[in-house]
């Protein structure tokens, strides 16, 4: 409950507005928490090691040879410090997964295409 003080300048509409702002923020954050933390519904971007059998062009920088992968975090196994899991390739029928191989129009600073 808000109090009125000697100034008496906070109106009912101010209190209503504070309640609307608070409720809207809390509800949105609740859904955001559910979407991101529980469902892991967001994209992760990775540099996947260039696969020799792919026959596609790969991106090359001074230190890396790769193609780009976007995957939903839900499908990515964040297996830190182990090398037993494959986080870099799309599974069959995996929604939102995209593997990007090199082409001239996709090049960013420091990158070039190489054909393996």
């Amino acid at each position, binding site marked *: 409950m808000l109090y*009125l003080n000697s100034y008496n300048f906070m*109106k009912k509409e101010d209190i209503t507005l504070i309640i609307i702002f608070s409720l809207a923020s809390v509800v949105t954050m609740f859904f955001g928490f559910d979407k991101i933390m529980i469902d892991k519904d967001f*994209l992760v971007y990775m540099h996947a090691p260039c696969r020799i059998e792919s026959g596609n062009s790969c991106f090359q920088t001074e230190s*890396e040879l790769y193609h780009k992968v976007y995957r939903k975090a839900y499908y990515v196994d964040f297996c830190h410090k182990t090398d037993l899991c494959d986080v870099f390739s799309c599974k069959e029928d995996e929604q939102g997964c995209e593997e990007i191989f090199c082409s001239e129009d996709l090049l960013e600073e420091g990158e070039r295409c190489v054909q393996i």
Partner: protein
Amino acid sequence: MDILSCNFDTARFLIFSSNAEEPIAYFAHIIPLFLSLLFGFFIFLNNRRGEINFLFLILNLLFSVWVFFDLILWTHEKPEYIMFFWASLFILEYLFFIVAIYLLHFFIYKVSPPLKLKILSLVLFIPILVFSYTSIGLSHYILSDCSRYAYEGVIIYYLYFLETIVFFYMLWLIIRGRKEISDPAIRRQNTLFGFGLLSFVGTFWIGNIVLLFYLDWVIEQYKLLGMVIFLIITVFMIIRFHIFNIKLIGAQIITWIIVILVGIQFLFAEDYFSRFWNIMALFFTIGLGWYLTSSVKKIENQKEQLFFANKNQETIVHFVTHQVKAYLTRSRNIYASLLEGDYGPLSPEIERVSRIGLESDMKGIENVHTILHAADLKTGTVKFIKAKFDLSNLLKKIVEQMRPTIEYRGLTVIQKYQDADFIFEGDEMRIAEVFRNVIDNASRYTNKGEIKISLEKTTKKFIFTVRDTGVGLSKEDMAVLFQQGGRGKESHLTNIDSTGYGLFITKIIAEEHGGSVRAESKGRDQGSVFIVELPV
């Protein structure tokens, strides 16, 4: 490089890990976080009824949560944590920018911001709410290196655009406040507070813009120090202008807490850059602490002297007003005797002058009586005798008593009573005074048109409203309206007999009954509405 080779530390309690490589991250977060929390609660708890204190707490709370969430981004290793807390920053950032506008508006104008602005702020919030947790908020998390970085979506441009507008709007509010407010002391306070708030908002906004162009996360951290500048200015204003109604000793304690906090941070500073900033902050706060300590002693002495001076002045004022009242009464009796023919028939000229003299003395006595009555109410020497009575019956009686005077002034009286039970427990004589004062005030400041009087009841309160078509109230008038001797800036043009005590008395009586009184007006020549609320 891929995530498999990133040797991330596991965060403990969300924020403790070795992942934040730059010590400035902890330095820039921990100090503003603690200071804003400490200040927000300290100022609010000192005066829980103050709207400005309340808004100050909200601003500091939102900022503290923002800082805490931002620190998680520096320390946590899990992508979902980084994505969630990062996206939440957009919501919090928008909220504390809006609260900053509110706070500034309330501080300068002592009124709520316009309704259009409130609706606009809500509408502009919708895209942030809808898109923050989507790819428009944060496009994707980058696993290709060990940066624990997310790629921000287009919402960031929208947010920074709004922040730019907020910054310039606040700047405009400060400049307009300087033009509109004539009292130089209040103008100085407003400007200083506005500068403090603007430095907080501005540092934050500039930090964001720098980040947008240079992607330098270390420089970006300095945007948080804007809050420290704002808080230091606030401490100075508490000492110098006594804002927030905080006792000096409280301000003294809080300043030394800042000194200790800043000092402690020195122990954690690992590089020369951090140490340099730490030493600068430490010197600044020590200087402020010293200034405060010496001020407290001086002001305490002055307060003691002022207390005795006030006591003496009160006695003198009571003595003088009683004496004046005695002289006026004697003079009134002489005029009355003359007019009643005690000294024989009067010539028309002497009779005319005697009537003017009698009227003038009557007004003088009434004014002295009002001032003495206000003083008695203020010192608590007036006792309230409470009993149950019908508010609507009382109001109808008062209106009928006052109707001839109001109609004589060429005004129409319109009454509206809700069909409800208006039984109220209070001092009937004092509540009658409230009704009389508010109606009389409306009729004196209305040259033509009507006075609408209404009485309503909700589940929690009785609402007595008087709406007039009179001269209206400016923002400055509203700030002093219910204060002792408070009068509108141009009130003497409409009501030369105004003492400025009527509404002050009304306020004290309403508050003694657990109620409140307030005024609303769209401005000069727009009429006014006076609303008295009493608990059911």
